[in-house]
């Protein structure tokens, strides 16, 4: 069964039981955010909630770890876009 959620304003789908990071990789998108300092791209790094490289805004929650969050129907996932970002 596919789950529908919203990634940076776009309606997208992933299989059920996927983490947010898994869904992004499944969709062919590996860049998770741009850093607040130099707007450099980041992605999955440690995969176990320690490094905090995959922080995203998930629903109202800022700095949520994409590797530790399962996609839920209708979830709104927003990636930080560099120096002006508020999601970090």
């Amino acid at each position, binding site marked *: 069964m596919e789950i529908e959620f919203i990634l940076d304003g776009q309606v997208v789908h992933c299989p059920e039981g996927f983490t947010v990071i898994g869904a992004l*990789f499944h969709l062919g998108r590996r860049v998770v955010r741009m850093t607040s300092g130099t707007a450099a*791209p980041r992605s999955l790094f440690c995969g176990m909630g320690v490094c905090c490289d995959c922080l995203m805004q998930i629903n109202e929650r800022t700095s949520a770890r994409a590797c530790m969050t399962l996609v839920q129907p209708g979830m709104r996932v927003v990636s930080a876009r560099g120096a002006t970002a508020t999601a970090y």
Partner: protein
Amino acid sequence: MNHSSIVIIGGGPAGMSAAIAAAKQGLSCTIVDEGFALGGQIYRKPTNPERAPIPHPRGEQLRTEIAKLTQYIEIRNGHSAWGIFDGLRVAVTSPDEHTELLQSQALILAPGAHELVPPFPGWTLPGVMTPGAAQSLIKTMGVAPGKRVMLAGTGPFLLAVACQLIDAGVHVVSVLEASSRPAWLRLPLHGFRTPEILVEGFLYLNKLHQSGVPVRYGRIVVSAQGESELNAVQHAPVNAEWFPDNNCIETERVDTLLVGYGFVPRNQLAQMAECKLEFCPEVGGWIPIRDRNLSTSVAGIFAAGDGAGVTGSLAAAHEGKLAGISAAFFLGAVDEATFTAARDSIEQKLSRLMPLRRALDKISTLQPGLMSLVRDDTLVCRCEEVTWGEAREAVCAGSTTYRSLKITSRAGMGACQGRFCWPFLSRLVAAEEKCSVTDIGPPSVRPPLGPITLGSLAPESLKN
């Protein structure tokens, strides 16, 4: 406040085994674990079983045993333990952002370890990740980390992950092992008491050979290249101290690089509980000092598994069992004769594993050449984007403690709280101060140990 006789932090092989052992003595336990299901990193349970490969039978067996003991064992998955207060009270936040202080009579710390990655040019590029990160995608959802994958670092874990990638249909280009081939060929001399582990290693090598994946010994990755994502890796042969020969660099086009040089025990809760720590580089760094019963220096706090010194999943399960029965003995739920008999039996099983483990530790001992890869513009602190040049300048100007380096350069101030930068920055500081890493100390810890919201701390009456 919730009361359980024993609170166990971590639901991997150590934490699960501890819970089973304690529950069998009739004690109530609570397992606090950040994962979606029990298993830890090694025995991750698929979140999408249709796509993921069949989970490891040892993990399934532990989960089955736990399921039979649910009248004693409370499982809290998705919960973060982020602080220890007033002795044995653990602050825990649930996935729906409720925070509780768990009170226990005994605490078992089994938090596991995270991977060790040295800074090198390009290591922050998307596509560069730990072998464990790639494994997490495959094991839980059957998602590939990329299309053309190279693995680099040291230790048998690289071989295991390479085989899992092959099974998942991913193109593995090569495995680079930093240490030399002769060192690996001598392993059977140390592993004759554990032939089943040697066989496992041989099967990995055989699978890689059959799949045409070369394992190249004595080579390390010196840089990763790409614009918005990784597209190439440079690697070079190394000498005995892992200094690369820059005249022999090879460039390989890959979109994914999995790099891991071993593991770092997650010691933060032990440190916060003021357990005495010691520096043991051969098992990953700073670990809580433990007695024969796996008790830390703080009465009532026990530590087991990779979080108390990296010795692998088999040893972790034995240690967990010992910690569980030790905690039961500490609480008076088991008599001394039964306890010592159980301990002796577990110690025998552990000692059987140790010769091979120690030999592997020796092969994978970090060598100084690994520290030579950074350039002035290489980030050492991924979180705060602090370069090697900036960190070194701060150290040279006198910032030679974790605290002062953090204040002057911001290195270690970010969300990971120094977990990824400090293993290397502490060596830099030690080199500058001409002292040992032991004198430098672990990063200071303070709650919260992970990102939590202010809202999760608010009393229910303030929430709408």
